[in-house]
């Protein structure tokens, strides 16, 4: 059979290498000019995506697990790579999004417009894609860390694409620092693992006892290290600025995929254990809830489009964690249904979030491209000039709000179902899930509010400033990837049944204890066909409504007039509701976490008062109120030590001399 000739694993490895090296030709400037090189890289990337997706889907369909030991030796052990449904599931977004983003970049970040950094950007983009794939393929700690580190560094260079801007550099540095602090957690995690198993190789799923202290240490270090990458709440500080300052397609890839690699790490780590204690699940659930609510609350307060989307990533990671939490609690209470629903929900949301967040970032990229600003309050009426983009962004917005008939709804539904299963149980587990369900609801509600704001302010209304009025629709190279993503969103939302088999295999792969209970399957647990049906009905109804409305519109006479100014003679676009004013109520509600900063000068008195300004801003409160002061204090505490580093050469030699003397003396004593 053809499938045997080209095995899925071969496809995936080929795709990984192809992706990683897609930008390599650009490194030889003599060989190719930038534009051609970018074209070549894009083609290679698309090829890699196609091959990789095929491989991943095949793996998921076949449910195959393969392991390969690489023939060379690293200092520690023989490296192992492998492919199984869990990895394959994560490979779906890993190959899908970068492919789309690469195509998008061909127009968005065209070589002719940005000759300075296109080579770097393209190369590292490919490298990042390849390394993300490699992370999911790694089956031992060392290989994993290698791939992980390459991914982190490549992402750093991508964040710092426009390294001539100071804010970009600051964001890059923050990302670099935090990601390495996270890696530090991993440096603790793998030795723990090795101490427990005696090998750097990953243990089989469900083979370690979770009740030991070492297991707790591993869980916590993994939660820290991967959580830092995934951007869960107190560890998310790098995320908003990095995503906001990277080029949009990079943000799409980072937000859509890199965060998911963090999630992958956690799921992979959790899969090693059996007999998970309750507090693991509760902790994960709590983190998820906090990330979800606070993330979306922060998002509401933003008026930088990409920053806002970045906070939504935190929110969605929160949702994924809530799903994971449900799964873990299910493990504790031995409820296979909860495990399956939670895991499947989380995994599906991984895919969903990847698609719709990528879609949104790409859409945002188009808008920014067209308006030349990231500031929502300066935009307005974009839909008129960019109708397709508006439509596609709308699809993304609906999807992210978890509304039917799109995909966000399906995954959230699975998680909700998991909650309900949990509530049926008893004890603390039930209480935890019972408390978590409303949190998810709040998240959904707030997300809707937020996207109403975004969509309303950006796309509707009139342009608020002349210079930032949108000019032109994006080209096909930008619209096509967005369309593909929108189609995926819609497809998953409309026909989740298509994925249920794969999803179940992936979940089973992560938590094999499910297999014990043979009659548990996603099909029986979740009413996916009904979802499809409902969605279809909804769609049909909508279409019908639209058709009818259109006919009414064409039939009825219509005239155009200015907006009624309530008698006021000179309404200007500036009088429209702005993003800040829209969000004001909600940010006020969450002021205790958000700590918004408003600058309201009094209105000067007199008959003809001079101009005044109002300015409000929701800062990255966790960074500015928790980390920065703590670091400041640390810095001040260590200031005396810093005096040792005074730049005077002699003193450095003196340190050496003193050290030498002390060493000699210590030897003598």
């Amino acid at each position, binding site marked *: 059979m053809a499938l045997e000739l080209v095995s899925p694993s071969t496809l995936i490895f080929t795709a990984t290498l192809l992706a990683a090296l897609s930008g390599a030709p650009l490194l030889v400037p003599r060989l190719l000019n930038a534009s051609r090189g970018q074209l070549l890289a894009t083609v290679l990337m698309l090829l890699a995506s196609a091959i990789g997706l095929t491989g991943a889907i095949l793996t998921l369909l076949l449910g195959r697990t393969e392991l390969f030991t690489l023939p060379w030796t690293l200092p520690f052990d023989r490296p192992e790579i492998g492919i199984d449904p869990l990895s394959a599931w994560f490979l779906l977004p890993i190959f899908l999004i970068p492919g789309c983003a690469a195509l998008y970049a061909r127009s968005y970040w065209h070589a002719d417009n940005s000759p300075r950094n296109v080579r770097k950007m393209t190369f590292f983009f490919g490298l990042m894609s390849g390394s993300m794939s490699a992370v999911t393929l790694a089956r031992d700690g060392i290989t994993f860390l290698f791939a992980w580190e390459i991914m982190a560094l490549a992402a750093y260079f991508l964040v710092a694409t426009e390294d001539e801007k100071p804010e970009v550099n600051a964001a890059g540095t923050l990302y670099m620092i935090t990601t390495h602090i996270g890696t530090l957690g991993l440096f603790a995690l793998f030795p723990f693992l090795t101490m427990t198993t005696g090998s750097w190789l990953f243990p089989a799923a469900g083979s370690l006892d979770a009740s030991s202290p070492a297991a707790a240490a591993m869980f916590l270090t993994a939660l820290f290290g991967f959580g830092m990458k995934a951007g869960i709440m107190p560890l998310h500080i790098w995320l908003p600025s990095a995503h906001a300052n990277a080029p949009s397609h990079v943000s799409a890839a980072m937000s859509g995929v890199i965060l998911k690699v963090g999630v992958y790490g956690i799921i992979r780590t959790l899969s090693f254990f059996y007999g998970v204690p309750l507090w693991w699940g509760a902790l994960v659930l709590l983190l998820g809830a906090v990330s979800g609510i606070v993330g979306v609350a922060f998002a509401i307060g933003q008026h930088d489009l990409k920053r806002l989307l970045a906070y939504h990533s935190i929110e969605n990671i929160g949702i994924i964690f809530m799903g994971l939490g449900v799964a873990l609690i299910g493990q504790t209470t031995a409820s296979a249904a909860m495990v399956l629903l939670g895991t499947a929900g989380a995994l599906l949301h991984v895919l969903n979030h990847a698609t719709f967040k990528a879609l949104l970032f790409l859409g945002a990229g188009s808008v920014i491209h067209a308006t030349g600003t990231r500031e929502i309050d300066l935009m307005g009426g974009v839909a008129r000039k960019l109708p397709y983009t508006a439509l596609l962004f709308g699809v993304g917005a609906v999807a992210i709000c978890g509304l039917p008939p799109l995909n966000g709804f399906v995954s959230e539904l699975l998680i909700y179902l998991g909650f309900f299963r949990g509530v049926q149980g008893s004890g603390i587990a039930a209480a935890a899930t019972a408390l978590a369900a409303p949190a998810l609801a709040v998240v959904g509600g707030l997300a809707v509010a937020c996207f109403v704001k975004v969509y309303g302010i950006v796309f509707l209304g009139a342009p608020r400033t002349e210079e930032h009025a949108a000019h032109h629709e994006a080209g096909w190279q930008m619209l096509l990837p967005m369309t593909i993503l929108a189609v995926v969103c819609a497809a998953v939302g409309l026909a989740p049944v298509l994925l249920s088999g794969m999803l179940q295999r992936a979940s089973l792969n992560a938590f094999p204890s499910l297999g014990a209970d043979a009659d548990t399957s996603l099909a029986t647990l979740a009413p996916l066909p009904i979802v499809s049906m409902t969605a279809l009905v909804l769609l049909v109804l909508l279409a019908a409504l639209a058709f009818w409305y259109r006919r009414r519109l064409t039939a009825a006479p219509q005239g155009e007039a200015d907006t009624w100014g309530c008698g006021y003679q000179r309404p200007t676009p500036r009088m429209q509701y702005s993003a800040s004013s829209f969000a004001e109520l909600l940010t006020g509600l969450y002021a205790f976490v958000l700590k918004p900063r408003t600058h309201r000068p009094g209105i000067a008195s007199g008959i003809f008062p001079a101009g005044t300004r109002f300015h409000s801003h929701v800062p990255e409160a966790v960074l500015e109120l928790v980390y920065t002061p703590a670091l400041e204090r640390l810095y001040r505490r260590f200031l005396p030590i810093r005096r040792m580093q005074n730049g005077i050469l*002699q003193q450095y030699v003196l340190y050496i001399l003193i050290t030498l003397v002390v060493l000699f003396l210590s030897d003598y004593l």
Partner: protein
Amino acid sequence: MTQAFAVQLNSLLAALILLTAFALLAQRKILGLVHIFAWQGFFLALSTAVIGYASGEHHLYISSLLTLVMKVILLPYILYTLVRKLKIHRDIDAVVNIPTTMLLGIMLVVFSYHLTAPIRELSNLMTRSTLAVALATVMLGMLMMVTRRHAVTQILGFLAMENGLFFAATSATYGMPMVVELGVALDLLIAAFIFGIFFFHINTTFESLDVEQMAKLKETD
């Protein structure tokens, strides 16, 4: 030349090496420093030859010759031309005043003696007692690097340290293997060239060879 006389001669040379190490600390003129360094190298070469003669380890003659060429002729010449070219003839300012440096130096010598006392008991080489001097020369070279501001004195301190190490090698084990010595000699030569370039850059950047200027490179806070 009898064995006993050779030992005495070697002791005298060791004492002179120690003296030159102190003279390096005491000297204020840069050219004077270069001269003293050359003398130190000369005594070192002589001592190596004496040890070579007395111990019958004839490869030490080559070492001695190498030392003579490198440390008496080549390196001083390079430094000399450097000093001439960069026009740095003025007095050297020390971070710590010279008498205090001397006292510290004496303390370091006592310390070295104290450290090498056990080795002295264990070794049966005729040169064992000069090991303390060798270690002291290393320490004094380092002290020179610590207490002087000028970049040329830093390199001289470094080279004096190397002299000490070389002397330690001859007095502790009758010299290092030839390959190592050749390698070290080559390294030194290269180091001297690199330092030359380094000086040139410091000089053009700061218009001074005072290494304290380099504190400006530190990020401010």
